[in-house]
Every structure is written in structure tokens, then in C-alpha cells.
């Protein structure tokens, strides 16, 4: 179910909001001209894929070479923080490198969750270098069926 916010009627009070809207649409338009997809580009490591269904919010990240014990996930209010490091794996003695493309180092990314979640029911798994965090939505934001009765 899509969360659609009502558009605030601030057009008269804040004339700059309209300019901002035009600028954003022009940006989106110039992106289509450049032949780029509408996919947002991550600027902070790791790139994330977030999906939701009726009950859960699923966050995925590709973290090859990161061990589960080097990963730290915390939640505070509606902010989820993902921290960790990728340690070098191979002992580097008497070794000559031909290519070195896999970076090592630390990362930290915080995201604001789009919905409230039940902090006691968070499950995180790291399988084959893919981290999957499953967060159960809080009971009050889950869709509820309302039955209609007739007299």
C-alpha cells in the first residue's frame, strides 16, 4: 500500500516552494534526456535496496567480504544505523599484487525508516555477502481490514 501524503497548500505562503518543485522536475527531465535510469545513486556505502509488503520492511545491502561479527546494526527511533568494516583477508607477505580493486575500510550509513517498526522484531541475516534486515511494521501502521456490516 502506497503512503501518499496530502500535498500541503503552501503555494501562496511560500512562493519558493513552487520554484523548488520546478527545479526538481527539470532535474528529473534532464536525467531522462541523458539516458540514465531513474534509479537513485547511492552516495554513501553500502547501496541499499528497500522493499515493503503488508507486514514487513525489507532492507538489503551487498556486503561481500564483511563478516557478521564486523557488522553493527542499531535502531534508534526511526533511524537505522548500519556500521561495519571490511578487513583485509589475505596475509600480505611475499605477495605481489597485480590488481587491487576490492577496497577495505569502514562504513557507516544511517537511514530514516519510512514507517514505524516493531523494534523487538527485527531480524538480520548475512548470507553469501548479502545482508537482509527484516523489520516488522508496528501494529498501528499495518493495514487492517475493516468489515462492513449491513443492518
Amino acid at each position: 500500500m502506497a503512503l501518499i501524503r496530502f500535498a500541503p497548500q503552501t503555494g501562496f505562503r511560500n512562493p519558493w516552494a513552487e520554484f523548488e518543485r520546478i527545479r526538481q522536475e527539470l532535474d528529473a527531465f534532464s536525467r531522462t534526456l541523458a539516458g540514465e535510469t531513474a534509479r537513485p545513486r547511492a552516495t554513501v556505502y553500502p547501496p541499499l535496496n528497500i522493499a515493503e509488503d503488508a507486514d514487513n520492511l525489507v532492507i538489503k545491502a551487498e556486503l561481500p567480504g564483511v563478516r557478521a561479527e564486523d557488522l553493527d546494526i542499531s535502531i534508534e527511533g526511526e533511524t537505522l544505523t548500519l556500521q561495519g568494516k571490511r578487513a583485509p583477508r589475505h596475509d600480505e607477505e611475499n605477495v605481489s599484487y597485480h590488481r587491487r580493486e576490492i577496497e577495505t575500510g569502514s562504513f557507516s550509513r544511517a537511514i530514516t525508516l519510512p514507517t514505524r517498526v516493531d523494534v523487538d522484531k527485527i531480524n538480520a541475516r548475512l548470507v553469501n555477502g548479502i545482508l537482509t534486515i527484516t523489520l516488522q511494521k508496528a501494529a498501528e501502521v499495518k493495514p487492517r481490514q475493516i468489515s462492513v456490516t449491513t443492518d
Partner: protein
Amino acid sequence: MGEKELTVQEKQEVQHKGETTRPEKYFVPAVDIFETDNEVTVVAEMPGVGSKGVDISLQDDVLTIKGSPEPEPESDDRRILLQEYESGNYLRRFTVAETIDQDKIEASMTDGLLKVVLPKAAPARPRKIEVQAG
């Protein structure tokens, strides 16, 4: 080292591979290649690929590493809120300069990292050549 911040590396799609019959995406995995006196080791980043999804071949000095991620369970009512990376297959080829003992190639998959150890065949190992003064 260790304290360096990791940066986002956009996945690069494989170029000039020929067309595929299935609509699949192939990405170039990032690799580390290092060499010791006895072996050449290739480490490739292939997140999502299990040990069953890896295909390694060495033919005519061309090493091909290919990985297919395990299919994800699809859910009908799932809605994507943010997609910053794409998943797909991984493919990369290298021309190996050294003579490799093909029977002793070993490969392992841990935490989304593929490690291929290519032992050098005996003649390729460095021999010490004494220079005689005379």
C-alpha cells in the same frame, strides 16, 4: 588502513559479450589478483552467489569466472521503495600469463567472495640461475 571510509562503486555491466537469449544482466566483479612463487590467486566480489552458482573454467590460458546468484523468493505484494543496486550475474575473463597446473585449481566461496587459487606448473616456478664469474 582499516580506517579508510568505503566508497560506493557503481556496478559496471559487461561490455561486448554478445547477446544472450535470456534477459540477464552481467556485471563485472571487482577483483584482487596476487601472486606468490607457487600460485596465482584471484579474489572476486560476488555477493549473493553461493558455492553452487560459481562456474570457473580455464581454457587456452583464458580464465573465466562466472557467478549466478541464488534466486530470491518473490513476493507478490512486495513494493520497492528504494533501489540503489541491481542484482545479476557476474562474469569476468582474464588471460593468464603463467603456466597453470589445471588439475590443482582450487576455488572457495566465503561471504560473497570467490577465491580461486591457481597453482603454477613446475617449470614456471622461478629457478635460481647462478652466474659464474669467470
